[in-house]
């Protein structure tokens, strides 16, 4: 009796299983079962990004901090954009020519580009943006474009920018971050700081249009159907969700309330170990290079003014340990002040200071600082920014490592604005540890820290007060070089000199991490400080055929 019943049950189970499979097959969207989707992008979907704070404005002509650029670089466009090796690609400019002396840049603009309000985009907008907005009111722009002599507009789609002297990184500052192009018809003749389009209905030419900004909560952008790149953007909308606390930003990512966290200031580095374990997400280094290191106040404490002492400190630091334990492995050990993240300029053969306590001790003895009572030689102050995860843990390790060489380190933890004043403006420090963004070109990020003309008392300029005419000359040579080989040669030599003089001990190139759920594809790596959201697509969107969209 039992066997037939068993057979009956098996048959019933089999029929049920087949029916269930068929029903699922009929009712399901085949995409749900498609597994990992690669290949052509798909259209549709909403990406929700986490970020630390509200942007201060949506006018990138007057403000271009990273937090502003994160949003505005999807609303506005630049003349070009950069890839992961800092190579320029067309954005609003279709093509460009550089005169042999490096003084004249001629851009051919794209045809039929419309602003979000339907007005046509012309060369007058480019001229107006550089002369009346980014080059005038924007802190970064004013620095980047002070070398512009004149801007001519020979035709509605041609722009000629004449420089006072050759400036090799010029193309690099024409992205949507540094040089966002703004509509003349919206800003001409208005009070730029009080223009209503600054925080509501900004009129851009970029892939997404503004929909809503609920301060303290979120900014919503929707697809610009008239975007000048065919078939782009792929997403229907993008929401920037403001979550100030790093721990809760990580939690919101885990719970799925946000799909991605981009850019260095939004990624919750303290939680990287936990986030790495998530199975449905990908973390990657976006390759925006930076320099984390110990910087000396060369004109302050006479002890650190001695080169032997700086060399001894360099030998006393176990960089590998600092990176692995202090930076949670989120960084690469570096030996030069130009990080390997700028591969064409990085000199790997600079003088090196390997971890060697005996050598450190010998150098300190020679410098006239024998160990005193308690085994200590002297005390130094080490300043760093409170709450900066790239400094908080490493400085604790540095204190212990330098203690072994007989150097007592007194940690000075300053809130950011206090640190800017104490360290960069008043030079009231012995050592400073922290990250400095080097950007994609040494002329933009490295020269400001080491040239004599950059000893200005302004934040993030030459705060070690290092001054060497040869280094100044080499930086000048590099910035005005018209051949890349000459530029590279100059930067190689600069690094060699800087590592001999040692105003800075380079410790690490911080990895700039992005995390995104696997249901979103196409996030790029780039040396730009923002992510290009028109590249990103959702795996459950409608498939696009080749030719339906413009490839970059």
């Amino acid at each position: 009796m039992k066997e037939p019943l068993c057979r009956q049950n098996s048959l019933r189970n089999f029929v049920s299983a087949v029916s269930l499979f068929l029903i699922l097959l009929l009712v399901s969207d085949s995409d749900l079962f498609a597994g990992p989707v690669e290949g052509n992008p798909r259209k549709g979907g909403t990406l929700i990004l986490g970020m630390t704070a509200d942007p201060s404005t949506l006018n990138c002509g007057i403000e271009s901090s990273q937090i502003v650029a994160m949003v505005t670089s999807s609303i506005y466009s630049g003349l070009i954009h950069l890839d992961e090796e800092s190579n320029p690609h067309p954005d609003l400019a279709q093509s460009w020519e550089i005169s042999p002396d490096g003084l004249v840049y001629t851009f051919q603009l794209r045809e039929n580009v419309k602003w979000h309000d339907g007005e046509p985009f012309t060369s007058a907008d480019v001229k107006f943006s550089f002369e009346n907005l980014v080059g005038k009111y924007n802190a970064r722009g004013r620095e980047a474009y002070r070398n512009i002599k004149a801007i001519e507009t020979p035709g509605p789609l041609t722009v000629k920018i004449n420089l006072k002297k050759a400036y090799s990184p010029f193309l690099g500052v024409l992205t949507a971050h540094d040089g966002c192009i703004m509509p003349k018809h919206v800003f001409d003749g208005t009070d730029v700081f009080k223009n209503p389009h600054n925080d509501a209905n900004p009129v851009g030419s970029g892939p997404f249009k503004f929909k809503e900004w609920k301060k303290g909560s979120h900014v919503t952008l929707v697809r610009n159907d008239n975007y000048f790149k065919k078939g782009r953007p792929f997403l229907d909308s993008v929401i920037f969700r403001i979550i100030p606390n790093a721990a809760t930003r990580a939690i919101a990512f885990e719970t799925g309330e946000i799909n991605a966290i981009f850019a260095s200031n939004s990624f919750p580095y303290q939680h990287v170990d936990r986030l790495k374990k998530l199975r449905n997400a990908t973390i990657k280094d976006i390759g925006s290079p930076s320099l984390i290191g110990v910087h000396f106040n060369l004109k302050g404490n006479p002890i650190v003014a001695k080169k032997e002492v700086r060399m001894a400190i360099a030998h006393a630091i176990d960089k590998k340990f600092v990176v692995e334990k202090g930076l949670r492995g989120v960084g690469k050990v570096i030996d030069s002040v130009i990080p390997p993240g700028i591969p064409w300029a990085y000199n790997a053969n600079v003088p090196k200071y390997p971890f060697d306590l005996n050598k450190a001790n010998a150098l300190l003895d020679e410098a006239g600082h024998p160990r005193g009572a308690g085994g200590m030689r002297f005390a130094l102050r080490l300043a760093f920014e409170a709450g900066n995860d790239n400094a908080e843990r490493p400085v604790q390790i540095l204190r212990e490592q330098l203690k072994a060489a007989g150097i007592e380190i007194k940690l000075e933890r300053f809130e950011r604005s206090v640190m800017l004043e104490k360290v960069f403006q008043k030079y009231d420090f012995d050592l400073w540890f922290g990250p400095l963004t080097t950007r994609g070109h040494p002329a933009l990020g490295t020269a400001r820290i080491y040239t004599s003309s950059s000893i200005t008392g302004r934040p993030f300029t030459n705060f070690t007060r290092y001054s060497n005419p040869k280094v100044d000359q080499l930086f000048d040579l590099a910035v005005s070089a018209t051949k890349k080989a000459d530029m590279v040669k100059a930067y190689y030599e600069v690094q060699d000199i800087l590592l001999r003089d040692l105003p800075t001990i380079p410790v690490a190139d911080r990895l700039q991490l992005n995390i995104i759920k696997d249901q979103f594809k196409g996030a790029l790596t780039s040396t730009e400080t923002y992510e290009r959201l028109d590249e990103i697509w959702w795996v459950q969107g409608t498939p696009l055929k080749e030719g339906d969209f413009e490839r970059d």
Partner: protein
Amino acid sequence: MSIPTFILRRLLHTLPLFLCVIVFNFILIHLAPGDPIQALVGEFPAPESYITEMRRAFGLDQPLYIQLLLYVKNIVAGDFGFSFYYRQPVLTVILDRVPATLQLMLPALIFSAIVGILLGILSARQPFSLSDNAISAFSLFGYCVPAFWLGQMLMVIFSIELSWLPSQGTKTVGADLEGLPDFLDRITHLLLPLAALAIRHLAVNARMMRSSMLEVANEDFVRVARAKGLAEKEVIARHMVPNALMPVVTIIGVDIGFLFTGSVLVESVFGWPGIGRLMYESIVKRDYPVLMGNFLITTAIVVAVNLIVDLVYVWLDPRVKYKK
């Protein structure tokens, strides 16, 4: 004294208070090191000419006492200034955030008052019983636990482990809900921050109500009420509770100030777009006008609530009269 005269007198008394708040906070903020222009510029060496222009535009190039006098003059004229960071009128920036804070604070205040008072009554009915001890232990925990830590723990349990409740914001962004689904969505977003913010006040109210009830229990009128044969429920509800409420009402008035302080942390943890978070952000960004405006509006709300508390006294206890 009639109630309108009393209110008017109290309002006049607040004027010197506001002046003190302005002067004290102004000095305090400017004593702290840090430069708003640098905070605005970020990690970038802004040209000197740019910084000078911005200082002039924000009025920071004037001596401090002139800045203060100008500020007071503008406040009298109803002008709260212009935000350095948002480049918008301060009042617009703050009023934009007030609804979210009230959406969190009022339920927290009501919840902590009602539940706290009920727990206090329950506790006092049988002192040192199991239920009393349990409530006391809970109150001690609630009083000691830091709101930001509790917030994160609640998030780990209810958002990550159980996936019952959202962890961030006032509503699901991008969902475009309306009507009842929108209301329910907002309620689910409110629960965790409400619990994190209310627990301390709930604990204080419970403890205060308990001791107040025990004090009242020994009064003659309670003995008389029992002697004339009233049921215990009646004795508690009609005789003990109204009399025991007085100190609790005072505490609830004071709570408003503490709720603002607590909301700075809770709003930051739960990404709640209220004025507590705005206050924290404006400290970091050295956005002096927003910070000052925030202090002033917070002061105004605390003063208003305390005035209401004073009026509630009369309703609760007819013996209280507004003396000249």
